[in-house]
């Protein structure tokens, strides 16, 4: 261990250390840049590709300005694409290890659709029926800002930070009545997060305590009103949560211990709608998490690790029953509130052994026990064994081969519990069911010459739900990734990558209550992607750098449902081609200009997207997927300080 704590300082005499040849940079350094450009698109989904920017002009400010004072204090202003849909800014001042203050700001826009059609338009929490279809956006905007302080000394530090996020926009929801109506629902919320804490750090130990408080305020009413029904849909209730975190770590030579205990509470006491059989609800969930880790380099060849994780969710909510007994219109069941508790205990041990120089064998055993209340199965236990061989001793080759096996079972699966009496008794919910999992992975890195590296990773995993006659019965996930990096010349870099993945799952169902499986569904997901790129720095007396990237991605999911006959579902895919070219020209040491061109060809199809009234009993938002070509051009100037 070459840590400073172990250094032999007996002979050091620093009285003559003047650092005359040192050249610390005081004053300003960094750069300031401004850019302008345009996005050309007829579908604002492209904004997801173009930094949140919609069709039209774009301006941005990029600053990376740092100031160092001789006293050791420094300040910085960093902005990244400030002024665009997804921009950020960060201003900080302070001296490392003494006191620091920071202010930060960022925005993020996510587009789903700009052509959702509905005759209902939100006005606050009321959906007003306009009588005719109105084109609307499905889009979320997040605006985040906050500050952070820290004050510290040689061994200690205290800190506090605050962050607020305003989230506004729309999302797609649905209101069920005699028929189902998809709606463009409003989103308007504020989430505050406070954190404060203190840390103490010694040469081989650390301890800290912190308090984290989060408050989510939904600025909308308790429920959405639609067609004079004031209780059409409950909005997400405002809620609060806090956590007290206590942690510590200690190192004894080459053995390292770390532990953490987190006690938390999540509460929700929004007004309860005055309808139905429940008069009041005070939501309260207590959480307790405890984690311990130990890692020890027993010898230079052998390293051992062990960990224990405990996580408990205790739902202590109180429900005030009203006078009327409410019956669910669809199932005929009496409404019942279930308070779900979960306790997880995970134990892991592992070993890593260097067989010889460049040959390492790793292995481990994990055990995960979960206990639940109010569910079909009270306990599940999962045992996992894994091993891996890594070979790095060969000149131009690295190999890693990993294999794992895990088995999940548990207490009696009580399919006839109150929770599921309406379900087929042969159903095994996939997250509770017995499951055997086999996984393998092979990684190969080949570097035939110093400047070229080729990586291959292949994977195969299979889940078998052997006791599940109804539900998910089997799933396979396999594929490969390839990568190539080549520094062809001093000026030219080339890279290429790609891969494919297949996820195949099989499930079974029955049309007869408690009958054996008589229909089957097979879902085949396939993903393929490929990209290549270059950068070349040798043009115009090395003043011009050009580069480009191309990426192709294709997601497909095919579903076939069979009951005697096999019926494939309609198309469900998303395909994109993305191109990015840039040229960066240095006029002088201080001044440079950059031109960026981005292009996206995007097309997707979804059988579920149908006309507003195409299906009886259902009103959709009537959008039809995306199919567009979009362009973005940006010109920017940068000035180095």
């Amino acid at each position, binding site marked *: 261990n070459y840590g400073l704590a172990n250094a032999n300082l007996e002979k050091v005499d620093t009285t003559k250390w003047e650092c005359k040849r040192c050249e610390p940079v005081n004053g300003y350094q960094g750069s300031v840049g401004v850019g302008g450009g345009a996005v050309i698109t007829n579908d604002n989904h492209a904004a997801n590709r173009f930094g949140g920017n919609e069709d039209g002009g774009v301006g941005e400010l990029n600053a990376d300005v740092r100031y160092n004072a001789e006293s050791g204090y420094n300040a910085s202003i960093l902005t990244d694409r400030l002024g665009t849909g997804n921009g950020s800014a960060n201003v900080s001042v302070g001296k490392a290890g003494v006191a620091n203050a920071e202010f930060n700001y960022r925005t993020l826009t996510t587009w789903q659709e700009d052509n959702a059609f509905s005759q209902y338009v939100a006005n606050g929490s009321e959906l007003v029926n306009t009588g005719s279809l109105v084109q609307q956006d499905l889009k979320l905007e997040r605006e985040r800002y906050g500050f952070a302080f820290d004050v510290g000394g040689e061994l200690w530090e205290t800190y506090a930070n605050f962050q607020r996020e305003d989230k506004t926009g729309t999302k797609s929801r649905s209101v069920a009545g005699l028929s189902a109506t998809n709606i463009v629902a409003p989103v308007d919320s504020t989430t505050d997060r406070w954190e404060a804490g203190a840390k103490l750090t010694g040469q081989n130990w650390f301890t800290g305590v912190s308090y984290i408080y989060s408050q989510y305020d939904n600025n909308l009413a308790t429920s959405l009103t639609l067609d004079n029904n004031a209780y059409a849909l409950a909005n997400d209730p405002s809620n609060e949560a806090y956590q007290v975190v206590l942690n510590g770590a200690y190192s004894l030579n080459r053995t390292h211990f770390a532990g953490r205990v987190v006690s938390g509470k999540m509460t929700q006491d929004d007004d309860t709608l005055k309808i139905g059989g429940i008069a009041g609800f005070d939501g309260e969930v207590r959480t307790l998490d405890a984690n311990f880790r130990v890692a020890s380099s027993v010898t230079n060849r052998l390293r051992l690790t062990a960990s224990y994780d405990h996580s408990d969710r205790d739902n202590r909510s109180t429900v005030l029953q009203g006078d009327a007994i409410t019956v*669910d219109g669809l199932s005929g069941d009496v409404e019942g509130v279930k308070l779900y508790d979960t306790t997880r205990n995970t134990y892991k041990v592992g070993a890593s052994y260097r067989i010889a120089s460049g040959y390492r064998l790793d292995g481990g055993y994990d055990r995960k026990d979960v206990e639940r209340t109010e569910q079909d199965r009270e306990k599940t236990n999962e045992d996992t064994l894994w091993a891996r061989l890594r070979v790095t001793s060969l000149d131009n080759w690295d190999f890693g081969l990993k294999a794992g096996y895990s088995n999940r079972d548990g207490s009696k699966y009580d399919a006839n519990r109150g929770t599921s009496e309406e379900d087929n008794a042969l159903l095994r919910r996939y997250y509770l069911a017995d499951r055997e999992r086999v996984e393998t992975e092979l990684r190969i890195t080949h570097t035939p010459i110093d400047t070229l590296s080729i990586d291959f990773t292949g994977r195969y995993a299979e889940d078998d739900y052997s006791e599940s006659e109804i539900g998910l019965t089997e799933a396979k996930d396999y594929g490969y990734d390839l990568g190539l990096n080549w520094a062809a010349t001093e000026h030219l870099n080339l890279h290429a990558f790609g891969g494919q993945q297949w996820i195949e799952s099989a499930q079974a169902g029955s049309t007869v209550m408690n009958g054996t499986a008589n229909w089957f569904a097979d879902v085949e997901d396939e993903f393929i992607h490929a990209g290549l790129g270059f950068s070349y720095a040798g043009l115009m007396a090395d003043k011009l750098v050009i580069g480009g990237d191309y990426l192709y991605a294709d997601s497909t999911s095919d579903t076939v449902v069979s009951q005697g006959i096999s019926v494939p579902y309609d198309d469900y895919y*998303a395909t994109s081609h993305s191109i990015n070219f840039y040229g960066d020209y240095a006029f002088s040491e201080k001044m440079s200009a950059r031109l960026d061109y981005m292009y996206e060809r995007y097309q997707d199809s979804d059988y579920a997207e149908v006309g507003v009234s195409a299906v009886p009993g259902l009103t959709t938002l009537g959008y039809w997927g995306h199919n567009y070509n979009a362009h973005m051009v940006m010109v920017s100037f940068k000035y180095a300080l």
Partner: protein
Amino acid sequence: GSWDDMDPQEFEAVLDKKFAEGNYSKQGADNCLMCHRRSEKVMALFDGVHGRADQSKSPMAGLQCEACHGPMGTHNRGGKEPMITFGENAPLSAEKQNSVCLSCHQGEERMAWHSSVHNLEEVACSSCHQVHVAQDPILDRKTEVETCTSCHTRQKADMNKRSSHPMKWADMTCSDCHNPHGSMSEAALTSTTVNNTCYECHAEKRGPFLYEHAPVAEDCAACHNPHGSVNDAMLTQRAPQLCQSCHASPHSGSPIFNSGEDRMTAGKSCLNCHSQVHGSNHPNGSALQR
């Protein structure tokens, strides 16, 4: 240095001996810079925080170059004697390289380093970090994802699927959810649990709701793959098949053949009626319909 081809064990033995002997230079950095000041890479140290003598915790305020590269010994006599060096091509083991960095960079963010996957995989700090620069590139959001996905190729693929978090253009980065130095939580998450990590940005799903959906309260990852999916909303499967993996009543368990022409599959599928899958606060919401 000329020791690049030295046998790693011999190299380490020499360094161990030098470190124990503690023969530091007479003039500190001035000794080193007598030869090394001609290197731009070396001098770039002074652009960044590690080169500042005015900050008490900076190596320049202490043993200067030798704080990280170890005591000079007789290295200045022709440069034949090895020094502690960093990087992928350094003959020194990752554990020894990292012991230098870790002697100052301790504390909460790295408290689980020793049990972290990156440590067990013998990843050196210098595989991701640079010291002789004004600003370490990995700390720039724009370069972070690229560095992580150079090894995590599955995740590189996932973020280009039909739905994913906005990772492709660094609007979100890996470290928004994961601590690359390891954490006390599973998958090196920055928050206590999977769900707690999700609630950091999706607090509206935290509840607790009057009517909860059991797998939602237990594990968001039961239905969602946060790295990306060929399905919308990062779902591992889409409705109705996802729902039918757990619900098999006469109402929910029937085979549905006409994909786009049935109100059980078109629009929002099962969610046309059961739209409150993340929990409902409606007194009549036990079927997560309101």
